[in-house]
């Protein structure tokens, strides 16, 4: 069971308090009607499914109940860092 640092609680907490919420930094378009079918399909369905460092959304469901963003390694499963919603997208170190 992983330990996940909740950026709101500022604590390492057990994984079972959290739930995964898909890839991060995919903002809902402000004016969906302006999008072509292809663009809308891209927003709805296309995800990067990355091997290695991956930007993810997590929810501290049984904790502070906040969604936050994380950079996680999909190979080792481990979290590199977590940060609050609205903060800039974490850069992946080369």
């Amino acid at each position, binding site marked *: 069971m992983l330990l996940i640092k909740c950026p709101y609680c500022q*604590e390492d*907490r057990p994984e*079972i308090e959290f739930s995964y919420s898909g890839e991060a930094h995919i903002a809902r378009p402000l004016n969906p009607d302006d999008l072509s079918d292809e663009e809308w399909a891209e927003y709805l369905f296309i995800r990067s499914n990355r091997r290695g460092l991956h930007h993810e959304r997590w929810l501290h469901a*049984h904790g502070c109940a906040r969604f936050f963003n994380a950079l996680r390694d999909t190979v080792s499963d481990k979290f590199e860092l977590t940060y609050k919603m609205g903060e800039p997208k974490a850069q992946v170190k080369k």
Partner: protein
Amino acid sequence: MLSELKIDQAVELAPILTGEVDLLPVQTRYSLRVKPKERCAFIEASNIDLPAQIGKMSVQYDRVVLCIGPDEYILICSLAEREPLARKFEELMGKYIFSATDISHRNVSFILSGEQTTNMINVGCPLDLSLENFPVGKCTRTIFESAEIILFRMGKTKFQLETWRSFAPFIVGYFEKYCLQNRGK
């Protein structure tokens, strides 16, 4: 003809739990949310002490306020305080940006006490409950097996555990097993 209906928290505590687990009578509980930048003003206007940090709690008279999210508080107090509080929230509504929802009957509360309390909670709760990591006065929402709980520490060996009404028997079942296995009463 119009009489008060009987209150039924639908929780039964086996005799083996005596001294370890107590059910609190019905409390007044509010889920309070306050826009963070209005917190100080709201405290002043309401005289409700909202802790500044997640995981902290304040105690005023017999009123406890837990901060369990960035802008989320649980206020727990006696039944007598309910009417005045409800009136107060009504007055403040529109003047401040906040939300107050009565959840008095949503939760039931248990007082857990005794030397074995942390072990008993750790049967289902994965948090480190050592005094260093979970000092007196700390509160949090967390999980007990598959039931969500709110846990706060009132003393070295005394905790209050809140859970939604329908999850209570599930949790109490674990406590019963624990007490039976470890005390054999």
